[in-house]
């Protein structure tokens, strides 16, 4: 019997969903609302110098890659199911498009982190 590749994608979906459930609300609040609009946090929290230093540290790189990549893989899995729910049944094609997009996003994020260096 051919082995299913579903466990790999489901693990990425689960890890992304768990990460989003645990820290997603705080991240959206910080990066999208509080820091850009000067609420609660120091205005230079997301300054170029701070974000550069953050992404140059190995732990910062792991965190940034985990958030972006796992959120993308999580969403890709659900968007594939949503497309099926709304009548797009080309399962193989949908998988290539949704997981391919997540893979592309992961590669772009990894490349940017490499370019930033240490």
């Amino acid at each position: 019997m051919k082995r299913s590749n579903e466990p790999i994608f489901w693990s990425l979906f689960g890890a992304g969903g768990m990460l989003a459930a645990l820290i997603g609300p705080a991240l959206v609040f910080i990066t999208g609302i509080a820091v850009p609009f000067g609420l609660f946090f120091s205005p230079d929290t997301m300054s170029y110098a701070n974000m550069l230093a953050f992404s140059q540290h190995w732990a910062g790189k792991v965190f940034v890659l985990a958030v972006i990549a796992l959120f993308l893989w999580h969403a890709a899995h659900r968007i594939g199911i949503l497309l099926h729910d709304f009548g797009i049944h080309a399962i193989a094609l949908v998988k290539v498009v949704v997981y391919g997009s997540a893979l592309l996003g992961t590669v772009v994020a990894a490349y940017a982190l490499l370019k930033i260096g240490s």
Partner: protein
Amino acid sequence: MSNRRPYVRSMDGWWKRDAYFMRYMAREVTALFVAAYAFVLLVGLVRLSQGEAAFNGWLQYLKTPQMLVFHLIALATFCYHTWSWFSIMPKTMPIMYVGGKRVQPGAITGAGIAASVVACLAVLLIAGGMHS
């Protein structure tokens, strides 16, 4: 060729038929905002790798009204995701026993949401310490 025209029940709007399906659909649709938020962060990361001017352009863009509206909706969606993620967790995880008794679904959901509150507070505190 047959002249029979068998009745096929339409599946249009099937998810509006039942509160259970509505909750399912709401939960799945959060993924659109998770993807969009990840994309916003990805753009920020790419701009960061391109230098200070590029990154500051991204920061300025975050201050536009449309991005504020987007992030407000995303915040509500992520909160809903947290709630729904731990609501379905008793069904998605293996059955857990503590002291020979099955852990009740409500306890699993409650523990998950409590863990989220703690994790979010930790992230807020760490970010609060990130200034030079």
